């Protein structure tokens, strides 16, 4: 399974709509087996969703996301875990082990 996280200075990007970098993580049996970065350009909701789909992403972890983007991404069958904040490695570890329910990973007000 492929997981994507939006990254900005080693933290989850504040807003998916204009995030510039994706960390793609290959996951087998809740273990990371490989990772690489992908650059996102200024793109329309359709092309961003198509890019995620082309990369084979099944789950997207991001910060805030507007419904223009979220609705289209979800129609591609990609699950979004939005409004996540924190250091990327900590978020990834938590996702693979205990999940992201801890309030420290939630953006304020979400």
């Amino acid at each position: 399974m492929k997981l994507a996280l939006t990254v900005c200075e080693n933290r989850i990007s504040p807003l998916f709509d204009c995030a510039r970098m994706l960390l793609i993580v290959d996951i087998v049996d809740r273990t990371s087996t490989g990772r690489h970065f992908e650059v996102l350009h200024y793109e329309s909701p359709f092309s961003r969703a198509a890019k995620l789909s082309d990369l084979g992403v099944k789950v997207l972890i991001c910060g805030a996301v507007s419904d223009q983007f979220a609705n289209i991404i979800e129609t591609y069958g990609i699950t979004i875990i939005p409004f996540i904040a924190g250091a990327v490695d900590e978020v990834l570890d938590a996702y693979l082990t205990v999940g992201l329910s801890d309030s420290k990973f939630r953006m304020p007000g979400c």
Partner: protein
Amino acid sequence: MKKHKLYQIPDHVTDVILESISDGVFTVDHEWRITSFNHAAEEITGIPRDEALGKHCREVFRSNMCETDCALRRTMNEGKPFVDTSTYIVNSEKRRIPVAVSTSLLKDEDGTVLGGVETFRDMSLVEELRKKLDARYQVGDMVSRSPSMHRIFTILPQVAESDSTVLIQGETGTGKELLSRAIHELSPRRGKPFITINCGAFPDTLLESELFGYKAGAFTNATKDKPGHFAVAEGGTILLDEIGDLSAAFQVRLLRVLQDRTFQPLGATKSVKADVRVIVASNKDLSKLVKSETFRQDLFYRINVVRLDLPPLRDRKEDIPMLVKHFISRLNRLRGRSVTGISQKGLALLLSHDYPGNIRELENIIEHAFVLCPDGQIESHCLPDNLRALLRGSTTHAKIDAALQSVEVQVIMDALKRNKYNRLATARDLGIHKSTLFRKIKILGIELPNLDGRTQQKRAR
């Protein structure tokens, strides 16, 4: 003279003021952690103060400029304030909220920089009003401020609501298909098919099978039934484009279909009922074709129920800035670009051209510019060679200035008429100060009637 002693405002009053204003205000330290967050900031973002304090500002504010073009970061780096930068934030319901942001340094009494302060204003209402205002000038994918187009926009809902045949005339590239599509989308037939066929592109026999379809065995190689465009458009709308190019024989066939609302597929023995709204379009003046006896008079009267004449772009050059903006915004959306607009010189060049290809030509010019100018403003060197050649002629600058002036005169005259020559209302309508309007009226030599809007109002009383 008695000197008044200046009343010193106690410190806590500043907090009261901050809490009572409608602009959101927050401050950050050097680590970008939020150190204060006023009531309006809570209201606009939907984030309670206690959740915001101590958090990284971009995880609270989450605007589209946080990651790449943070105004507060620029202020902290350059030491200068930025005022009214337009952006949007996304709240916890995934809704975009347009805001105008201003930033400045936060200093103590000694001038030591403590961090930064950001104020932001909710522009949702302004944005909503702006959209409503723009909607006055937009129908479907067509935008225009010119009075001739506005007349069409005004009657379009009634035209669409009726099921009458519509004749659209206009030069190539004036938007006949866009107008037909707008009629379809405004009509009760929206949601059903909208089919377009260019009648001038097919010989008679092929056009007949394209429009009405054929039965298996109707001719060699017709191995199975094929529905025609009329059958495919069932319940919807069909646009018969370039109808002026139809042969005399086919005009008779089409007349029968329009009269009886039935058609007969090739090789069929029975007629089929057609529940299709017909829109016809032509780049030729059909009444002239009738006079020259190349177009049947009875067919002309049958299709000339509601006629809409689209003016060429050279007759509504005041639309060029709005169209350019429209195309730039559409191409930015489609291509994921961030072109911000066009330079004054580039726009002047566009205004000095006559556009034999009309709006389609203008759209192609902007697309050409997008290839050469990926972001920032479109400069004149990004425009096609034939336009830039205009710059080289010795009289060109005079020509461009004249073009700019004539458009300016047109825009001001239209606004004056719209506001019944009330100059204050006209200035407001144009978004300029009244003294600027007076100056332009004088410089451009615009002649006004003796009565202005105010005098008319007084007389009416």
